[in-house]
């Protein structure tokens, strides 16, 4: 899985009626899987890849997607006192 990369990026409609970004991950064996990202995860992903445009994400490693998803879902963890 270490060589898996982002192979395609597309705007997508989400279940909740918001715009999301569908990132396709291509594995070394040629298999592909789509992963949907919300607005927060996309912002983190763009920053982490130093990309200004979603098309610049193509070719970047899957680890950026993993980290963005993790950071997005953890963004309010352990801050119950807000």
């Amino acid at each position, binding site marked *: 899985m270490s060589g898996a990369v982002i192979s*395609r990026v*597309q*705007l*997508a*409609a*989400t*279940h*909740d*009626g*918001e*715009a*999301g*970004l*569908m990132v*396709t991950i291509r594995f070394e064996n040629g298999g*592909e*899987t*789509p*992963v*949907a*990202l919300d*607005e927060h995860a*996309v*912002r983190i992903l763009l920053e982490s890849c130093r990309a*200004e*445009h*979603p*098309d610049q994400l193509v070719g970047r490693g899957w680890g950026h997607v993993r980290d963005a998803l993790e950071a997005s879902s953890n*963004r*309010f*963890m352990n*801050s*119950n006192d*807000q």
Partner: protein
Amino acid sequence: MHDLVIRNGNVVDGSGAPAYKADVAVKGNRIVEIGEITGAAREEIDATDKVVTPGFIDPHTHFDAQLLWDGCAKPALSHGVTTIVSGNCSLSLAPLKAKHRMKLVGMFNQIEEMPLKAFEEGVVWDWETFSEYITRIRKDLAINVAPLVGHSVIRLWVMNDAAMERTATDAEIAGMQAVLRQCLEAGAVGLSTSYVDMDERLQPVPSRFADAREIDALASVLGEFGRVLQIVPEFYDADLTIARLDQLAETSLKHNIPTTFSPVFLNADNVDAVARVMKRVDEQFARGARVWPQVQTRPIDISFSFAVPSLLFIRFPSWYHIMRFGTPDDIMAAFADKDNRKKLIEEAAALAPLWPNLVFRHGKTDANQKYIGQTLAEIAEQRGTTPVEAMIDLSLEEDLDAHFLASGMGHNDSAAVGGLLNHPHVHIGASDGGAHILSFSTYGDTGYLFSHFVRDLKAMSLESAVKKITSDTAAIWGIPERGLLQPGYVADITVFDPATVKRGEEKFVNDVPGDGYRYVRDSHGIETVIVSGAIAWTKQGGYKDACGEVLPGPEAKTVAA
């Protein structure tokens, strides 16, 4: 003498059998005869040129709160829906200790967009147990309700704040099993859980802290009753969805229970993923597991305003930059600035294919009310400007509180969606009725099924479509004596005009307690809706007296007429 006879209708009985001309007679709450009925009745309905079907069953709703002030689940009943499944996605309003009420209100606000004021002004909190909640809603029920009990609330009941922090101990799991058993005995149709949803603090809902042994223990209780497990898997990731589907299949087989998961939807870029999910569904059914994927009929719309960041403009860096990083004042200034505005308009020119689908759906100023429901292209023509400028100007005039809708942005490949809906293992549902009330309308999906997929595209027959949302649904959820038109069955009946039925136009209405608003659709082409033998809604007369039941619990059955 019969109480009610529906005459000269085209009977589509829910079994999938071809339609046939017949009269349908009702006595009490039961269908007693179908054929040529000569005797008089206390009440008669002329169904000439209309279709007579079993009432529709909506398996995925969030009407839990609305039922406290509206026993009709408006406007679902008027769309021909006679039974709703509430309590999906791990959230129900019972069992609920008084000290946890505000926690649940927060979750309903975050996940379902139910306004806090609606709870403050529309809810008298006079229950704690599931049985007490059932008693509470049954008083004014006009629609049948098959209530799921939410895993998150069972966790809260047993574990209190620890429900949102950790896995459960053996003793706590045993406690949850006991509470679930009580809920099922009180009439719950099953248990719902979620691996996805976040609470009002954007932290995982309690059900997400459960480990596999907790799910297994609760499923074993469902097995005692043969009741349903509903889950929300990680639907945004094909591999995770399939992994969760495999777990669900093992649970179904081990405990001999039906299970269902949602949502599954088709976007242009995930067709292969849905094909993989469906292939695994077929494989698991072949093993004997019951893992029903729920698929919605309506396309997915994207709603947005410039007051909240949206990815809709992410391919246009200037737009995305101001939406993502600008304060409302920054955005207003950027829209008003002549040079910036020029740059934004130039960049947005590439969005040309989007304009025919962009609709102005809500604004607060009187001057702009006339534009509501129109596309930006139509508004631009009236204003002598371009659609992009119309969007910018409306946003400025409304202090950014102008709401737009990009319609049909997903789940909109009709041929592919029609094929999916026809799949023998697809469970038509996932309407989310009663939820997302400030984002889009979750009503009229059945009308859309008949108008778009049956009448216009001929993607499925009328008989197949009716079967999918009546007898198939009743069978999946273990709801007896409903979903078919045949003597001895309970008389839940919908009469509609197959030539005109559709989902109706979306509108923003002020009918939520606490002076709240929501998006709804009025039914179109539905003539009469009968619940448990009594006329519950007519096109001419609107809503009638309450007659709904709680299904399928034995306690509820004692209330039947």
